[in-house]
């Protein structure tokens, strides 16, 4: 089953980041292994010395580009970065990221909301990186963002999903796709996100900083697919005690 943004259908539910890879070739190998169809990139000043272009690589691989506003602390900077990205990469899609401080890299809710409102008015398809706060997620949705992206844990921390209950609440109330973004450390975290009902998972460091990026990319692809299937299949209710799975009738007994 595919998912859709702006009439663009995607089969892979794994959205990849590009940060943290030690080289462009290792990144390329990991992106291919992940099967991703949508990958986020940062916008920075052009450097004539760096000949290798991540944008050129994504075009060659046929992967849709999702520019982000990583590193922005204010709505003003995030809006300018988004507008530059739209012009440079010829897409209205933007992953809006407005961080509060460099220790947590957690979103600044006030600046985030202000930037989201402005970008929606300006015609952007906004993927809003947000806190795992159901109230803020709802406000962003009401402001017109296309996707709500709660953090599982701080960026790059690998701590997994610290508040699964909140993520589940966000999903249950959202009319737009929810993508778990940030904090994923290993495959089971990605599977859990999907089991909680997320539409997709966005991750970078868990793959790019893994000892074997290729293997972890493949693991994440399988985990996202497994979690999505499990969510649709419906888990059995939890019980305090065992429920026998074999009949007691016809048991043999020693004399």
């Amino acid at each position, binding site marked *: 089953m595919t998912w859709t943004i702006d009439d663009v259908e995607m089969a892979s539910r794994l959205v990849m980041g590009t940060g943290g890879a030690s080289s462009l070739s290792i990144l390329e190998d990991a992106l291919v292994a992940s099967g991703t169809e949508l990958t986020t990139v940062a916008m920075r000043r052009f450097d004539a010395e760096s000949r290798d272009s991540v944008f*050129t690589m994504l075009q060659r691989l046929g992967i849709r580009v999702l520019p982000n506003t990583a590193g922005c602390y204010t709505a003003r900077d995030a809006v300018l970065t988004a507008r530059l990205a739209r012009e440079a990469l010829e897409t209205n899609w933007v992953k809006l990221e407005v961080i509060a401080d460099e220790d947590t890299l957690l979103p600044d809710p006030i600046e985030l909301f202000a930037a989201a409102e402005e970008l929606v008015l300006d015609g952007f398809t906004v993927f809003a990186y947000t806190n795992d706060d159901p109230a803020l997620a709802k406000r962003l949705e009401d402001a017109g963002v296309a996707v709500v992206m709660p953090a599982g844990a701080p960026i790059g921390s690998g701590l997994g999903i610290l508040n699964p209950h909140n993520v589940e609440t966000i999903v249950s109330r959202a009319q737009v796709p929810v993508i778990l973004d940030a904090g994923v450390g290993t495959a089971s975290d990605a599977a859990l996100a999907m089991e909680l009902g997320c539409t997709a998972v966005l991750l970078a460091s868990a793959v790019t900083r893994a000892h074997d990026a290729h293997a972890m990319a493949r693991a994440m692809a399988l985990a996202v697919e497994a979690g999505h299937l499990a969510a649709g299949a419906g888990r059995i209710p939890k019980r305090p005690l065992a429920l026998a799975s074999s009949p007691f009738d016809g048991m043999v007994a020693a004399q």
Partner: protein
Amino acid sequence: MTDHDHSPTIVLNGDRHELPGAASALDLIAEVTGRKLNPDGTPADGGRLGIALAVDGEVIRRGAWSDYTLADGHTVDIVTAVQGG
């Protein structure tokens, strides 16, 4: 030297940058990227440029680059996609 033939100096990506003379945004981008550009801002070799430009915090659309004359004191940022996020 008169004001007329004084070479404009801009701040390009945070550094002082002297322009050879009267220059448009298109001239500057062609110089910085080393690529030939059509008047509409697209690369002459086809493909996509992947570059955007802002002057004093305002994005200048690609189609307007050739008509945009850079002036002394302009703060110019030229950005592209990099690994991150």
